[in-house]
């Protein structure tokens, strides 16, 4: 039942992805109630998730394209190999 801070913060990390089990969450709650440092960690972790969400939004809609020069170069190299 008793967790170390290492274990508690690991569960806290897992819960940022909503993948901590119910039992883990209960154990975490108990630990957070008793440990100020981990309590702080949990709060900061949440903020970190919000920050990372922003990166996700920034990157999500970005599609990456090869430019024409890169395409040509690739096609040329492949062509040489095909002819071999």
């Amino acid at each position, binding site marked *: 039942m008793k967790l*170390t801070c290492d274990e508690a913060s*690991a569960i806290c*990390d897992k819960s940022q*992805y909503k993948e901590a089990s119910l039992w883990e969450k209960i154990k975490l709650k108990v630990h957070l109630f008793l440990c100020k440092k981990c309590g702080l*960690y949990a*709060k900061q972790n949440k903020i970190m998730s919000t*920050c990372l969400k922003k990166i996700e939004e920034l990157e999500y809609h970005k*599609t*990456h394209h090869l430019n024409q020069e890169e395409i040509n170069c690739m096609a040329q190299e492949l062509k040489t190999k*095909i002819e071999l």
Partner: protein
Amino acid sequence: MAVTDKQFLNPEKWVSLHADYLFNYTIGRLNDRDLAKDLVQDTFFSALKAKENFKGESSERTWLIAILKRKIVDYYRKINSTKGKAEVRMNFYADGEREGEWLEERAPTTGAEKLKKRLRMKNWPKFWKNASEIYLKNTKWFFRMKTIHQIETEDICKELDITTSNLWVIIHRARTQLRKCMEDNWFKN
């Protein structure tokens, strides 16, 4: 016999049909333009060599993706066995009476409200980019896949051939590491 369903390869058209798609797929996992380009090119070369193995049961693209996936896994394996191991700082006492407790100098100290206020001022995307390069090193790919690209745990583990507990250890290290440098950074500036 469903002869009409049989797929055929058309290497002359690979670049125009699939290069962009494969490139995007790779960037989603490795986020490095040059590297992604090389891996895509390499995929075409390998595919060409393995042309005879194509049974025509899947589409050309699916087949190419399968080859590309192997290239990506090989790449992860290579970087993880050689240089650039993540700079793993200890965050907790590793043994002794206080095993598993926060190391004094690595423990969170700043209240959340204070952090939130600083947050708006910081150039977060830039900070993230630097911090993930410096502190997460190779594990940044795992962290990215899970956190930024939100790929399912199961899929990451299958794709990169690691166990779930391995992945969670990586995530845990990455987050405790990032947290520390975020806190330091917010208050240094």
